[in-house]
C-alpha cells in the first residue's frame, strides 16, 4: 500500500511539473525573445537555449527611443489611470457596499438587485451610447473618460457588501454612543475592519484597469494618450515588422503585476475569484 502511494505521488508530481512548464513556457519564450535581434525571432525553431552571444538589450533601447519615446507615455498613462481608477473605485465601491451591508433602509434590496443586474450585463453593449455620452461630456481622449463610467464597480460593491454583512455591528453602536457621526463611524471604525476586503478588491480593480482593453481602445484617440495594451496593440501589423519593440514592451508591461502578485498571492487570488463569493 505504501509503495503504491509513493508511485501515485511521483506520477502526479511529474504530471504537475510538465503542466507548470507548459503554462510558464510562453512567458519564458517571450522574455528570451525580447533579448534577441528582430530577424532571429521567428527563426529559433526548437532552440530554447540561452545563447548570450546573440542576446542584447537593443530591443529595449529601441523601445524607449523610437517614436520619441511614446512607450514611456503609455506606461505613464497606464500607471496613472490604474492608480486613479483603483483609488477612486475603492473609495466609492466600499462606501456603497458598506451602505448596503451595514444598514437596514427602504429600497435596500432594490438597490442591491440593481447592482446584481449591472453585474450580469455585458459592458460591450453599452459601448456605443457611452461613446456618444463621452463626446457630449467632453471626456473623449481623457483619463476621466476611461475611468468614470466604470468607477463604481458592481463586483467590488457586491464583495464589500458581503464582507460588511459578516462584520459585528456592535462597533457601530459603540461609535454612536461615543458621539461619532455616521460618516465618522465608517471612516474611523469600519474601514480599518474592512482591510482584507480592500486588499482583495484593490488588486482586482488595479489588474482590471491595467489590462483593460476594449473601453480605452474606444475612448483614447491620440497616440500619446494610449495605455499599454492599446499602445502595444497599435504596434501589431500584418507584416510583423514591429516585433522587436512589441515583445520588449510586452515584457515590461507584465513585470509590475508579476512582482505585486508574488508578494500578495492570497489577496490576488481572493480578488480575482471575487465573483465566487456566495451570498
Amino acid at each position, binding site marked *: 500500500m505504501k509503495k503504491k502511494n509513493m508511485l501515485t505521488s511521483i506520477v502526479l508530481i511529474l504530471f504537475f511539473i510538465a503542466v507548470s512548464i507548459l503554462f510558464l513556457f510562453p*512567458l519564458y519564450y517571450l522574455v528570451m525573445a525580447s533579448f534577441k535581434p528582430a530577424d532571429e525571432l521567428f527563426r529559433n525553431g526548437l532552440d530554447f537555449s540561452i545563447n548570450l552571444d546573440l542576446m542584447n538589450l537593443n530591443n529595449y533601447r529601441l523601445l524607449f527611443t523610437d517614436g520619441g519615446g511614446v512607450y514611456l507615455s503609455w506606461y505613464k498613462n497606464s500607471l496613472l489611470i490604474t492608480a486613479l481608477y483603483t483609488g477612486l473605485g475603492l473609495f466609492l465601491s466600499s462606501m456603497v457596499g458598506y451602505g448596503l451591508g451595514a444598514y437596514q433602509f427602504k429600497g435596500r434590496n432594490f438597490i442591491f438587485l440593481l447592482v446584481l443586474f449591472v453585474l450580469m450585463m455585458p459592458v460591450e453593449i453599452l459601448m456605443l451610447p457611452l461613446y456618444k455620452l463621452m463626446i457630449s461630456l467632453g471626456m473623449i481622449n481623457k483619463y476621466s473618460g476611461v475611468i468614470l463610467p466604470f468607477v*463604481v464597480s458592481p463586483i467590488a460593491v457586491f464583495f464589500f457588501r458581503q464582507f460588511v454583512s459578516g462584520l459585528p455591528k456592535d462597533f457601530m453602536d459603540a461609535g454612536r454612543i461615543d458621539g461619532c457621526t455616521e460618516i465618522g463611524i465608517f471612516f474611523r471604525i469600519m474601514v480599518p475592519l474592512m482591510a482584507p476586503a480592500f486588499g482583495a478588491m484593490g488588486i482586482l480593480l488595479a489588474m482590471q484597469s491595467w489590462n483593460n482593453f476594449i473601453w480605452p481602445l474606444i475612448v483614447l484617440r491620440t497616440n500619446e494618450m494610449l495605455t499599454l495594451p492599446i499602445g502595444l496593440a497599435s504596434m501589431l501589423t500584418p507584416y510583423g515588422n514591429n516585433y522587436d519593440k512589441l515583445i520588449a514592451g510586452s515584457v515590461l508591461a507584465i513585470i509590475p503585476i508579476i512582482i505585486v502578485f508574488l508578494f500578495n498571492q492570497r489577496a490576488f487570488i481572493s480578488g480575482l475569484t471575487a465573483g465566487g463569493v456566495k451570498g
Partner: protein
Amino acid sequence: MVKALRSLLYSEKVAPYIFVSPFIVAFVVFFLYPTINTFVMSFQEIVGLDSARFVGLENYKKLFNVHFYNALKTNTLYTLFTLLLLIPIPILFAVFLNSAFVKGKTFFRTSIFIPALTSVIVAGVCFRLMFGELDTALVNSLLIKIGLPPQKWLLGYWTGMLLMVLLHFWKTAGIFMVYYLAGLQSIPHELYESAQIDGAGAVQRLWYITLPLLKPIVIYTLTIAIFEGYRMFGESYVFWNEGMPGDIGLTIVRYIYQQAFQRNDMGFGSAIGIALLCLVMIVNLIQLRFFGMFKKERD
C-alpha cells in the same frame, strides 16, 4: 441651519442613502441612460453624431446577413470549445492539487495561475510569436519534426479558432482551478473517511462525493465561461487587428466595433448590441433555472 446639518450627520436614517448615492448616480448616468439609448439607437439611422431618423426595424432586418451569422457561429463554437477545456481540466488540476500525494502544491498552483495576470494583448503577442507562419517558428518546427505539415495559423478558420481557444484557456485555467480548489476545501473531510470505510475507491469517491458537491461551483464557472465566450473581443483583436480574411475571428462584439466605429453605422451597431443582450439574457435565464432546480433538490 447648523443644527439641522449636524443632526443629518448623526442620522441613521439618512446615512445609508448618502453611502449608496455614488452607485445611484453612476447607475443612472452610465447605465440606465446608455441602455435606453441603445434601444432607441437600434431603431434609428444615425448620420454623423447628431442627426438621426427612425427607420423602424430596418437595422434588425440587416442582422440577417452572412457576417452576423458567421460571428454568431464563431462565438458559439468558441464558447463550446472553451467549455470543453475549461471545465474538466481545471477540475482535474484542483482535485490532484488538493490530494495529499502532491508536494510543492503552492509552486504548481502559482505557475498555473500566473498566465491569468497577463493582458490579452501580451498573451496574444506570446502566441503570435510561438505560432509564427515561418517554418522556423516554434510550433511549426515542432510539427515538421514529428512529420506534420507546417501551418499558416492565422489564415485558416480552424487553426485561428484553435489559437483563440488556447489563448483563452491558458489565461483562464488558473482562475477556474482556484474556484474549484475553494469548492473542494469546503467539502467536509468526514464524508471521504466514511466512504473509505464503506470501501469506496478513489474514482468512486471522486464520482459520488467530489463532483456532486462541486456542482454549484461548476454551474457558476459554466455561466462565466458562456458569458465570456459570447462577449469575446480581445482574443480575436490581437490576432486579426486589421482585417479578418473570410470573417476568421469575426465575433459579435467585433462586428459591433467594425460596424459602429469603422463604418460609422451606429444604428446597426446598436441592433447587434441588443441581439447580444438577448443572447446573454437567455443564457442567464437558463442558468437561473439550473440554480433553482439545484436548490429544490437540496432542500
